[in-house]
């Protein structure tokens, strides 16, 4: 689908990967997001990987301050943001130095030549100018005076030089938009919406810079080919591009509506979970209450209070915050109140790598509490999947009167992909019941259980059902405080059995590939895309390999153990040192093999393919 009349030769590609990188203040996240939207609207399948430092503005021009955004777009269905980069945009020497290894041989390199001055090179630690020595000879280098051209393009807008320079990212965007034949329209709409009424001169300047970049591509002879990537054959429907944390937030809003519940989010700002709080704060008209608590502990315990009050109650955080919530999680388990605890995992331990992804909180989710304290754990596999998982978490929470731990990670939270928009009417309702009167005529028993071992959710305000919950062990049925040894063991076993019984209520594990064979790749969470792609490649190459991706980590699907026995080897790729592997080994006595990476980065497809090849 061409968006312009090509003035230069056009090459058709199945897919391409572009990475924008520059200083944290250079607007690379914006450039990446805009390019993603334009590609999604054109009909490509897209997958993105924003990668930014923890510091808001690290010293300008240094390697520490480099921020990047990678987009993989394709005419086929894709699951990852791409292993290697076909076109790299580097706004300064530091960005070039830190990202050039990702660019494939023969790839296109667009650099802002003006930033390669003595100071810029020094800050990046370059002894010589890479644009002038032959270190970049294996790439198609286009060294463009982006600063100078942008300044000229916006000179009649009445901006200061500093302001004019801020439009550089739009110039770079325009150039890449031309290179891959994307329409400028969505970005022009964005500029108008974001700056149009409030800052008309900024809107005008950004528009000019964007168009200048586009026209530069069209006219400059050195750039001699334009590329096109045709739309992907996605399932029919209406699509939008969606980020993981937004999909998760919308899933929560939908779950609130589907269960006719007020949605309460208790949260304390923490990277990379804060955008859930910010997003939900915008949807008050869906009866959403957001409570920005004084700390993680208050966020957790306010969530318990709101659950007692009868709301759909949620708290969202990341590993360090969930560590602080630990005691509250125990209270949530013993009071058997329904709620969702979201952990958008990041690199740990301690503050670790706040802006980087990791899967190292699985054991925390499973075991990070005092006492025998079982909790269902489920995990999203992609940005769009976060929407479904949010609703599933709430369904399980209310059916079993239990807190549910929902895991995502920084890669899923900040990444985006096309999402087929569901119709509200097609989403399954989430029924919730509250007792209104005493069932046995002899006083209310808050710990009486149904066939699922679930207790009644009686709400304050209901006459006759007054009862007290608390952290002290409770007598089964009556809910009175009990120190009886037999009762304590009974209650511990009962709480464990209740969670285990959820296995009866979740789908059987699906398998991608033959039912049995040489190797099973078993994954959970963010590595879904890399594993699926790698397994498909290996299958195409004739390998005997299948793939299982787990959404349910506690309890596991009923048939998982049986599936595992049908394969000679089981490989578990994880962005940790083997946490699922330890659980699988102890649960099923299977000598699973680990592929473990803990660099704050997602798996590349090739890393998994390599391991598959080694094992088969």
């Amino acid at each position, binding site marked *: 689908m061409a968006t312009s009349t090509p003035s230069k030769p056009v090459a058709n590609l199945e897919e391409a990967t572009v990475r924008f990188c520059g200083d944290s203040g250079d607007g690379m996240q914006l450039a990446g997001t805009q390019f993603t939207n334009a590609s999604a609207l054109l009909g490509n399948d897209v997958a993105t990987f924003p990668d930014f430092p923890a510091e808001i503005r690290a010293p300008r021009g240094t390697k520490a301050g480099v921020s990047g955004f990678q987009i993989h777009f394709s005419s086929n269905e894709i699951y990852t943001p791409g292993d290697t980069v076909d076109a790299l945009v580097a706004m300064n020497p530091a960005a070039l130095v830190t990202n050039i290894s990702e660019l494939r041989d023969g790839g296109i390199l667009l650099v802002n030549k003006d930033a390669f001055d003595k100071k810029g090179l020094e800050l990046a630690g370059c002894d010589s100018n890479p644009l002038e020595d032959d270190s970049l000879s294996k790439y198609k280098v286009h060294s463009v005076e982006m600063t100078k051209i942008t300044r000229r393009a916006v000179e009649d807008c009445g901006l200061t030089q500093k302001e004019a320079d801020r439009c550089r990212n739009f110039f770079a965007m325009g150039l890449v938009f031309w290179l891959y034949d994307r329409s400028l329209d969505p970005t022009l709409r964005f500029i108008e919406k974001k700056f149009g009424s409030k800052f008309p001169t900024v809107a005008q300047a950004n528009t000019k810079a964007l168009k200048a970049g586009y026209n530069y591509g069209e006219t400059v002879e050195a750039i001699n080919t334009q590329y096109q990537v045709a739309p992907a054959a996605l399932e029919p429907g209406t699509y939008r591009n969606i980020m993981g944390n937004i999909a998760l937030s919308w899933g929560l809003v939908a779950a609130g509506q589907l269960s006719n519940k007020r949605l309460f989010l208790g949260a304390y700002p923490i990277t990379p979970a804060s955008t859930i709080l910010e997003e939900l704060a915008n949807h008050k008209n869906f*009866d959403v209450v957001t409570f920005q608590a004084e700390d993680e502990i*208050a966020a957790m315990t306010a969530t318990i209070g709101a659950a007692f009050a009868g709301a759909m109650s949620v708290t969202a955080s990341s590993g360090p915050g969930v560590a602080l919530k630990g005691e509250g999680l125990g209270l949530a388990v013993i009071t058997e109140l329904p709620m969702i605890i979201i952990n958008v995992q990041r690199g740990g331990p301690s503050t670790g790598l706040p802006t980087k992804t990791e899967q190292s909180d699985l054991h925390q989710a499973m075991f990070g509490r005092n006492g025998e304290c079982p909790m269902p754990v489920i995990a999203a596999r992609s940005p769009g999947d976060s929407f479904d998982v949010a609703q599933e978490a709430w369904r399980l929470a209310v059916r079993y009167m239990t807190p549910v731990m929902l895991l995502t990670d920084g890669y899923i939270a900040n990444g985006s992909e096309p999402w087929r928009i569901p119709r509200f009417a097609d989403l399954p309702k989430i029924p919730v019941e509250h007792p209104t009167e005493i069932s046995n005529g002899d006083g209310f028993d808050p710990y009486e259980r149904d066939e699922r071992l679930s207790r009644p959710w009686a709400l*304050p305000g209901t006459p006759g059902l007054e009862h007290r919950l608390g952290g002290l062990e409770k007598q089964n049925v009556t809910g009175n405080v009990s120190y009886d040894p037999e009762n304590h063991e009974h209650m511990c076993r009962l709480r464990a059995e209740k969670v285990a019984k959820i296995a009866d209520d979740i789908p059987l594990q699906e398998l991608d590939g033959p039912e049995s064979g040489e190797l099973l790749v078993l994954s959970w969470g963010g590595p879904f895309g890399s594993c699926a792609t790698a397994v498909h490649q290996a299958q195409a190459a004739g390998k005997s390999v299948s793939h299982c991706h787990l959404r349910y980590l506690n309890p596991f699907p009923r048939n998982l153990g049986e599936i595992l026995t049908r394969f000679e080897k089981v490989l578990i790729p994880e962005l940790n040192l083997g946490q699922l592997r330890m659980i699988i080994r102890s649960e099923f006595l299977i000598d699973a093999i680990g592929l473990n990476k803990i660099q704050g980065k997602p798996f590349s497809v090739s890393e998994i393919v390599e391991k598959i090849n080694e094992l088969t």
Partner: protein
Amino acid sequence: MSIDTPLPVLKPADFASDQDVRWCPGCGDYSILAQMKKVLPTLGVPRENIVFISGIGCSSRFPYYMNTYGMHSIHGRAPAVASGLKTVRPDLQVWVITGDGDGLSIGGNHLMHCIRRNMDLNIVLFNNRIYGLTKGQYSPTSPLGKKTKSTPMGSVDNPLHPLSIAIGCEATFVARSIDTNIKHLAETFKRSAAHSGSAFIEVYQNCNIFNDGAWEYAKNRETKADTTLELEHGKPLIFGKNRDKGIRLNGLEPEVVELGKGITEDDLLFHDERSPEPSLAYLLSRMRYEDGFPEPIGVFRSVDAPRYDELVNDQIEEATKQKGKGDIDALFSSGDTWTVN
């Protein structure tokens, strides 16, 4: 609160749960519990709309003994639990029961934030100046030099004063009472319940096992008229068995003066619980027995201010008015979309 049908007349016994009360015999908590049961039936709030939330400690067993909704939560977190509850259900009357260790040590942060938000909660802090449930370590309100199991040579921790903290957070209702002064205590609970916003009450409570007599000066019939001062709105600060002593302001410092000999009531500090400026209330909270002052009891401060729980719900109403009731399909289709056929 408006109700359609007349309330059944409840008695204090209707507010007692079927659980045995397990405080030590002679504990000041019994008296506080009795006054609470006496006051609640007089408030016109249906029993099912009352919730007690506590943390951990002797005082925090309180909810188990009340036949209302309740939660005995975890150490220090009762104000946060109650904040979540009250924010989503402003229709409920919520009481927070805490102690000097629970509320001011492990839970100090939550207490501070819930008060400054003016969350509509009634917070009752039982101050016995000791850790009772853990059997006798010093607490953040224990005086300097206090010898306890964990301070065999005397405490070197400078204590803090609950009301000074509450007033520092600009609490809209601040009061003090004494476990054995039952009429005063009941009246204080009533005033608290009638207040809209965070109401903070410090109760001098005797732990007869681990810190017996900590408030003896304020409770003893012989001394209490000279060691305490009952605050009355709009009245001068007068105290003493013969009501012949008063508090006068000397610049920014309070001083004890004797009435007569040229000093009249008009020279004294007049109590104004409705003053928007909290400084005088703070000054009252700093009047301490060990510094030669009578310690004020009664309502230090009672002012109106917007409540967090109300404002949050107002915003939801406002957003719904402006944008209309949330429409999921419209939300999902907002912004750029494309169709695949």
